[in-house]
């Protein structure tokens, strides 16, 4: 099967590569681009550990062919740090509120929560639980993940207010 020329924007940088169309986006990110934030968890579209942001949507990169996202703008957990490389608000709040234990689900959780807060800057606890339903964690029981996202919303809103 011949390879196709793939051009993507990943975390703000233009990247190019050759890949078979059947290559899953998660494999292209991890193996070709060495972007190993998105994790391979279940590989069956259930767990959300591979979640990345594609053109403003949360997408499971294990259920996406690289061919489908040719030309797209992709953000992974690596792209959610501050410009100076320090932890972004969601990352900091997950640390502060113990929103992780083993950390395996965390890149997917944070990337999904990022989009959730873009769409709903003032989510209720129920909104957060419903909006995070595509991400599974086997350690924490979710309580602290919900707290971390709620605290992130408050902090982002305070930052926005201060900037205005």
């Amino acid at each position, binding site marked *: 099967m011949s390879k196709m020329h793939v051009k993507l924007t990943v975390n703000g940088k233009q990247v190019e590569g050759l890949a078979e*169309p059947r290559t899953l986006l998660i494999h292209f990110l991890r193996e070709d681009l060495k972007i190993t934030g998105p994790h391979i968890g279940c590989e069956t579209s259930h767990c959300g550990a591979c*979640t990345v942001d594609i053109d403003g949507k949360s*997408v499971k990169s294990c259920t996406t062919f690289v*061919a489908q996202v*040719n030309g797209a703008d992709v953000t992974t957990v690596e792209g959610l740090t501050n410009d100076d490389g320090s932890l972004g608000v969601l990352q900091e709040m997950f640390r502060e509120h113990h929103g992780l234990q083993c950390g395996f689900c965390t890149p997917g959780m944070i990337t999904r929560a990022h989009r959730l807060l873009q769409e709903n800057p003032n989510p209720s606890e129920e909104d957060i639980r419903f909006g995070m339903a*595509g991400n599974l964690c086997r350690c924490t029981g979710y309580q602290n993940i919900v707290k971390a996202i709620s605290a992130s919303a408050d902090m982002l809103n305070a930052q926005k207010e201060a900037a205005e």
Partner: protein
Amino acid sequence: MIPAGFEYHRPGDIASAIGILQEYGDEARVIAGGHSLIPMMKLRMAEMGHLVDLQAINELKGVNVGADTVTLGAMVTQHELITHDGLGSAIPLIREAALQIADPQVRYAGTIGGNVANGDPGNDMPGLMQCLNATFELSGPDGTRSVAAREFYEAAYFTAREDEEILTRITIPVPGAGVGQAYEKQKRKIGDYATAAAAVMLGNGQASVAMTNLADTPVWSESASAALADGDVDGCVAAMLDAIDPVADNRGPVEFKKHVAAVMLRRAIARAQSRAS
């Protein structure tokens, strides 16, 4: 979990897509959101030489809410159905059901066209479209034709769509003012297919009832709908239990599924009634 190889096509209009299907015959298959097809390809239960991605075809996009009808492009995602401004007030049933499909990530990718065209008895939208008496538009080498949702499903994964046709558009009559609608779905966990689900529309002397995942096709029942229109809830439930044909699987034995079906249907009827005026 790496699928078999294929050539990738991304046509820019419906005619080009049909041309590719004609050229490669049963070697080719269309992909919309891919969240039913790609898992099957990863399991090597689906293999094809040519994958025809519909994402760049603008004719397949867009929600149009008119006074009498709503039209949905086949590539409209579940997420768009949920967030669209006018659709939620024109036909609230669609949003209510879409919110119960899969999980947020899947709803950004999954499309209404893929959901209804795949013919998976577990999918929620086919039953819903039968309840609403929607019409599916199919485009193929010989032009365009329409098939009623109530006539579309033949068996699991077998529909009235021919191999070289693409389901392009769905047209739904807007239920009159005062018609109550409800979708009730029993599932084992978030993201699961229904153990049983019921779509009900009721009001102005009319009623329509359809159920999901209780046979190898969605089940719309004329006699159950007629009984409900006459105000006979018990008769409606009895007629529907007679029409469904569930099989035992990991969601439970037949008797359990029939029990859940009746509970879902009664709940949907009660909620539709409370919303009718």
